[in-house]
């Protein structure tokens, strides 16, 4: 045995907050807030061990204020042989698409639902993987009250059956069971102490076509999230993609019905989730396009999405000298069908089955839709441009809990000009048109990059269409960053509007702020 290797990463985000009553920025008595972590990983042959130290001094605005102080919420020891892998301590895991189990961490969202306990992964023969785990979930710097028990089996048929080994079609089947235990001390309801969820999945790859589907079922799980109804939960996610040179097509659909699954039935906020419910709408990166992001509704949604990407060949009238990329996408999310269980019980009433629902029927309420088309064209070795148009319907009452529904047209022009070999200038022009809420916005961003070390950016987001003239505010920002090897330092100054930040349909609220930000990242 040698001395092994140590790797790690570090990130610190801090902000100095200035008072700004106009944008309703919260008052921060500490003036400076900071979130930081350091990951340390030691590996030696089949053995590995690691930990993550986290520090919140105090936790930054927009993150859950239950993150208090310092600690080591993540630590593990693992041993892996050819067939068996054993981990004790904290670990992450995902079964299939995550419909009944996804343990993951997202620092920017402030989410970490790792389990502390024991995990075993066993591969008895080629093509079969069996996983089992048991433990409790992280709850800030403590553990949640529920115990999670889970098992998963995945079977790659082409490896298991010799007759399929050379076949073009590749088939993977999987099945999983997750059960949580939480003592029932509720004074009013007869609650299940043990709640189990089951899922089955298939993945078929045939040439250019890839098909994925998973169905999940959860028995009665009354919780604060579903208003203590006893209806079983269901979820179905299916996706098919076709890809060949120059053309990609994808269609996907999902149905979620009462499938929030947390290891504490009384939990509030994005904590102690055992599962993950995929979000189908496009996740936009441009600021105005991401102003109204969709958040998955675990209590029920019907969702569909289709996308086509096409490359117009070079040296054609539309493709020009370098070719043109066109991407077209549409997604739509509605409520699920809900009817009362009887004539006297309102839909969703606590202490009842809640409602009945036709599995394949769409509900009448539109939650979100998004049509977008993006065209990217390279005009010369130095100059390229992208243009995007989006139309979004955003049911804010459902997604954020208060009206109105917003209908927004958004246009983006993204121009990049290469000045010299390592220097480039990027100009982003964005406009959002809506008659609802705060009205129209316009944004411009200019970024100068000296690759690979430096970048400087100036931006202004202006709410010129606000009906209240006082609220026609400029949200200006200036930032610069320095990158060397695996270190990155960025400093910024400006105003941040209040909004919602989402990753994969999971969101957190970001309050308005005004101040100086500092971000340091490093890995070794």
């Amino acid at each position, binding site marked *: 045995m040698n001395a092994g290797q140590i790797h790690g990463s570090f990130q610190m985000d801090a902000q100095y907050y200035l008072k700004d009553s106009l944008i309703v920025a919260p008052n921060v008595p500490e003036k400076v807030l900071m979130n930081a972590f350091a990951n340390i990983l030691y590996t030696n042959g089949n053995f590995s061990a690691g930990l993550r130290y986290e520090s919140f001094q105090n936790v930054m605005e927009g993150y859950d204020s239950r993150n208090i102080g310092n600690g080591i919420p993540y630590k593990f020891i693992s041993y892996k042989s050819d067939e068996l892998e054993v981990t004790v301590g904290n670990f992450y895991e995902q079964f299939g698409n995550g419909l009944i189990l996804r343990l993951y961490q997202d620092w920017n969202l402030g989410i970490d639902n790792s389990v502390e306990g024991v995990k075993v992964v*066993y591969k*008895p*023969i080629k093509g079969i993987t*069996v996983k*089992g785990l048991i433990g409790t979930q992280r709850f800030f710097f403590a553990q949640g009250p529920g115990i999670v*028990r*889970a*098992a998963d*089996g995945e079977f790659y048929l082409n490896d298991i059956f010799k007759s399929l080994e050379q076949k073009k079609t590749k088939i993977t089947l999987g*099945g999983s*069971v*997750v*059960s949580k*235990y939480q003592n029932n001390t*509720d*004074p*009013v*309801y*007869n*609650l*299940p*102490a*043990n*709640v*189990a969820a*089951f899922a089955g999945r298939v993945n078929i790859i045939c040439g250019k076509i890839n098909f994925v589907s998973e169905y999940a079922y959860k*028995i*009665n799980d*009354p919780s*604060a999230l579903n208003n203590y109804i*006893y209806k079983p939960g269901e979820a179905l996610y299916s996706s098919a993609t076709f890809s060949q040179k120059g053309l990609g097509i994808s269609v996907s659909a999902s149905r979620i019905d009462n499938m929030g699954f947390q290891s504490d039935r009384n939990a*509030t906020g994005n904590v102690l989730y055992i599962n993950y419910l995929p979000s189908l709408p496009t996740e936009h990166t441009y600021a105005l396009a991401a102003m109204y992001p969709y958040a998955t509704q675990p209590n029920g949604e019907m969702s569909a999405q289709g996308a086509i990407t096409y490359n117009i060949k070079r040296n054609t009238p539309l493709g020009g000298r370098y070719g043109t990329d066109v991407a077209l996408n549409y997604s739509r999310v509605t409520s699920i069908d809900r009817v009362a269980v009887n004539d006297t019980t*309102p839909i969703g*009433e*606590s*202490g*009842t089955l809640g409602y009945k629902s036709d599995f394949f029927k769409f509900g009448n309420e539109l939650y979100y839709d998004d049509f977008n088309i993006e065209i990217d064209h390279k005009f010369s070795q130095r100059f390229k441009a992208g243009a995007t148009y989006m139309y979004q319907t955003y049911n804010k*009452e459902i997604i954020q*809990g*208060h*009206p*109105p*529904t917003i209908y927004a047209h958004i246009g983006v022009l993204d121009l990049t000009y290469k000045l010299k070999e390592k220097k480039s200038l990027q100009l982003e022009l964005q406009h959002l048109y809506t008659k609802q809420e705060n009205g129209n916005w316009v944004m411009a961003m200019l970024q100068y990059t000296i690759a690979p070390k430096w970048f400087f950016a100036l931006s202004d987001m202006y709410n010129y269409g606000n009906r209240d003239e006082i609220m026609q505010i400029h949200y200006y920002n200036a930032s610069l960053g320095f990158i060397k090897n695996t270190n990155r330092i960025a400093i910024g100054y400006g105003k941040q509007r209040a909004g919602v930040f989402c990753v994969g349909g999971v969101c957190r609220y970001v309050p308005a702020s005004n101040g100086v930000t500092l971000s340091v990242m490093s890995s070794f």
Partner: protein
Amino acid sequence: MKKYFMLFLPFLFLVLICSCDKIKQPYIKTIKHTLDTVEARKMLLEEFTGDQCINCPNGSTQAEYLKNSVFGNSLILISVNAGFYAIPNSQYPYDFRCTVSDTLDNYFHGNPLTTTLGYPMGMVNRLGWLQSNPLNVCLSVNQWRDTIANHINDVPKISIELYNSYNPATRVVSSSVECDALMSLTSTYRICSYLTEDSIIKPQEFPQGVDSLTYVHRHVLRGALDSNPWGVTFIQGNTANGAQFTKNYTMVLDTAWNANHCSVVTFLYDASNYEIIQAEEKGISISSK
């Protein structure tokens, strides 16, 4: 060996599949008082609300659900219309507020000009009051149920019986209160009698800017029978188990109020911490609820 180990997989699934409890109806536990009904503790939920508060209908629905489906007559409801969302305007001209509701809102829910908690919020027997933070009594909707359930079987210190009468000609309400100490008492207790009016049909704002012009406002606080939001001292000093106390009130009903929908809610609270130790409700006329 591997084949034997493969048995581990179905065993694991079997164990997990068995690890689930399917609950059959009834889903709600039967909450029984351990004491005779007359002497049982009744709980009072005072909900801060407003006709322009879009989330308040949801709070009222939950309060009604707790009364009708969970706690029955052991729970008494009062809607305290006050604060920012209850200020009349051209769209919502009706003024539900009264001196008592404004006083309670200012003290327990926060002065709307300085600190305000959200809506809807409610006080369950005014439990949780802190001298350093009177607003600590306010509970969000999802806290009401457990707080009530956790205290409804507390041994009551006092019993209250109400005898109301109403003269339609003069619109005078008379209310007689008889209380028995059910244990030895040492604290100071004050008595309050409030008048509520049920089922007032007036506009209410809902989410997405939708108005209901015929919304039924339930259990609306109209005022105190003695005009005093904080009542008067009723029991003081060492009091023996079985001691009896009486108090009489009269009040003239506003002509706009429907007597058939009016009730008297009387309660006693500990003067040192505002905790309501017993409450009772009774309609003022034969046809009232």
